[in-house]
């Protein structure tokens, strides 16, 4: 059983509790041991960089040090936490002066970061470490060709990491296909949903989310799978307001990919935190249960332009 240091991040405590529950449930079913970091702190998200980059690195360094103490690589389900931890790790490894400075601060909490561990996003652990083939073998409940739009968002794949494919990655699609669902091809899968602008520039955020929802719908998505709590909230909780703003009639469930994966691995909706959606996922669940249906009626709703 492979073990990881698990860093859930602030959102997963309440707002995205279902992500937390389903991530742990999937890990358990895939024989992974997720040891939650003891007394982790907020990573600072993107807002912190505006104030103090050094402080931002320090916040992430504390979490990295907590993981290193366990002698485990870090995994986090939140795309924002992932980006911060990943790049803090890269930066500290190449800038010894900065690492020394930050380690001075970490001493206050009896911590030290030597830079021996790696940082992964949950999706990477499932797709690379466990492997899509292995997951396919463990699927007990096919998702019945449910049309799932994989939403990568920004910070899992960007900025550039070595020579990784940053414009058209395929691993999320492969994972969805492994569950028996049909991955929806749509152009905006890598485009920003605007989540980080929700508070500061609402109009922009809504416009971006609208474009994304529309594009997924136009390509026949029955559900959008996300790997980031911020994207989930932006796309799901504000659908009503987006409909108001643009005269649209979106009603598309936005689920965490772990909720769908969990269903395929045989977990019950309850174990996966279903029930806290603002846009009902009952149609999705119904389709998975109904083995007769092999193709999905897409809730394809054009926005009213009048």
């Amino acid at each position: 059983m492979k073990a990881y240091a698990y860093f859930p991040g602030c959102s997963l405590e309440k707002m995205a509790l279902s992500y937390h529950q389903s991530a742990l449930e999937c890990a358990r079913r895939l024989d992974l041991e997720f040891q939650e970091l003891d007394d982790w702190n907020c990573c600072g998200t993107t807002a912190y960089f505006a104030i103090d980059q050094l402080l931002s690195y320090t916040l992430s360094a504390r979490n990295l040090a907590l993981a290193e103490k366990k002698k485990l690589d870090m995994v986090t389900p939140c795309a924002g936490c992932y980006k911060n931890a990943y790049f803090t790790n890269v930066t500290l490894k190449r800038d010894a002066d900065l690492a020394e400075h930050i380690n001075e601060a970490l001493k206050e909490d009896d911590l030290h970061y030597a830079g021996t561990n790696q940082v992964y996003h949950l999706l990477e652990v499932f797709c690379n470490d466990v492997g899509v083939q292995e997951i396919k073998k463990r699927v007990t409940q096919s998702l019945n060709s449910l049309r799932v739009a994989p939403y990568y968002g920004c910070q899992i794949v960007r900025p550039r990491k070595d020579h990784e494919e940053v414009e058209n990655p395929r691993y999320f699609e492969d994972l969805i296909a492994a569950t028996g669902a049909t991955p929806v091809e749509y152009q905006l899968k890598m485009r920003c949903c605007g989540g980080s602008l929700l508070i500061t520039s609402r109009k922009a955020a809504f416009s971006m989310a609208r474009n994304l929802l529309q594009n997924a719908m136009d390509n026949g998505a029955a559900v959008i799978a996300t790997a980031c709590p911020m994207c989930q909230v932006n796309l799901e909780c504000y659908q009503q307001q987006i409909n108001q703003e643009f005269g649209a009639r979106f009603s598309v469930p936005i689920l965490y990919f772990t909720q769908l994966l969990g269903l395929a691995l045989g977990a019950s909706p309850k174990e996966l935190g279903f029930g806290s959606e603002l846009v009902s996922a009952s149609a999705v669940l119904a389709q998975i249960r109904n083995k007769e249906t092999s193709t999905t009626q897409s809730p394809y709703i054009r926005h009213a332009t009048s």
Partner: protein
Amino acid sequence: MSEKVGVYICHCGANIAGVVDVAALSHWAGELPDVAVARDYKFMCSSLGQELIEKDIQELGLTRVVVAACSPHLHEATFRNCCKRAGLNPYLFEMASIREQVSWVTANKTVALEKSKALISGAVHRVIHNQALEPIIVDINPNVLVVGGGITGIQAALEIADAGYHVYLVEREPSIGGHMAQFDKTFPTLDCSACILTPKMFSAGTHPNITLLTWSEVEKVDGYVGNFTVKVRQKARKVNTELCTGCGICEQKCPKKVIDTVFEAGMGLRKAVYTPFPQAVPKYPVMDVQNCTFFQKGTCKACEKFCPTGAIDFKQEDKVVSFDVGNIILATGWDLFDCRRIPQYGYGRLANVYNSLEFERLSNAAGPTGGKVILRDGVTVPQSVGIIHCVGSRDKNYNPYCSAICCMQSLKFAHLVKEKTGAQVYNFYIDIRTPLKAYDEFYQHILETDETRFVRGKVAEVTDAARLPGEEGKLIIQVEDTLIGKQRRIPVDMVILSAGLEPRHDAKEVAKLFGIGCSADQWFIERHPKLDPVATMTEGVFVAGVCQGPKDIPLSVTQGAAAAARVIGLVNRKQVSLEPVRASVNAEQCSGCRICNNQCPFNAISFLVDKGVSEINPALCQGCGTCVAACPAGAITGSHYTNAQILSQIEGILEVELGQREAVPA
């Protein structure tokens, strides 16, 4: 015996003197043991500078000369000749590079002076151990190998053949002609590419002095300038060219159709037995064994049945031919940038996104659509077309260099699209680069007459995700129009990607095969970027055309002719003098271990069984030094690179370096 050394320090204008205190250096050098005279002068390479040295040799009776100046690559030959004129053996001369290795790499005057001293001290120590040598004179084989049968190689081959020398022209594809044969029109004059190329192809194919080896690749090259031995693999055509008349019946009767990814750039079909295009030279077809029904399934043989002369030969094997040449010209050309590497431009995913070669075929009257510019559905004429410049070029994510031809090519495309379809054309550019004769006039012409809209901005993405009215069913080009500072979404029916030029995928291996260098981008490296653009660091091997760097047809032809001129000049001399740098075995020290025998890349070492020692053939030895380093007994010496020379040079350098350290307490 004590030697009289003269040391000459060049200012090279301010190049050296701006950083190195040449007066102090000269004064210091004059005090060195064995140095009879030390002088500094503004330009040592000038006639006056050289006369200074000649005069000293004659009047002071100098026996050794050291010049501290630029790199030996530049002026070693100059000063050797200078010594020779004054009656001193040219190998009793040494050069210390205090420009490339000192003044150009530091601005610190203190360290510059110290390093200059070290290099001069090393050269003085070494030159005392130099021996008088005589250059080795060898005959030049007048035959020439030209690799690559594109327009550059054809031009080079014709020039040499017309001068009366024999050329072996080796081409990998079934026909010569290269990329130019694929084009429709050529900029800036818009003359028909085939019309100006095919006469040259025909001449090359029929010239009595040209042996054409198509469907062939060079496998091995041995030897040195004047005396290369080349092995070429002639891939089996499965067609007996002695019997074949090129009538084309086999191709007509062949039932197997294959997508032609080479000549037709994937836009059209060919047969399993085929000539790539009607004007192919030679006219003989080749059989594509991978796709031939007979080779894959064991039956068919339609070609054989219908061939009127019985030329089809299914049993034909590859043939390796070997011949000798004195000089080699590489004109191996380029590959097109693979636009799939930029997923956001949609090439390979969005049907109506084309790369530049695809568009050339589409626009070509002999191409798959008969020259009609239509969409992939085969019928629709586009009403709007976007042409994107700099695809894969000037971009650190792909190729940092400018591909040189894309601006003019894109302007040409804009004109052809307008002429053939009347469509609204948009050109998306970062900078318009039209530097050569009649190029900017062409741009002006397009601006004046074609109503092409020019949008200054590198395209961010091409998408089929419609968002705004009018975008449905279109390809949307999203770009910042940088001249108005606004993001625009421009819906079009067709997108043409002006893809960049790349070195051949196997350029590195080819460079290794011929013993020349490749740049970081993998273009072949010329001897000097300005003053020796077609020679390489390997004597007798020349480069021409795009394999040396992106360029258009006029420049490629110029280089082909230039390389030919260089070769003809060498061949006319009939002999070439080689550096007398050769290895030799001291038989008394040789233990007969034979370790050196297999190390020699030129097969110059043989083992004399009766004497129990190894011996080096000086005619084959190239003085590379591999055996010298390999010999465990130290029995092999390389002339002009003897142990005494190298060790004393090191000693001389260290003397200054260590002296420095002692002088400055830590």
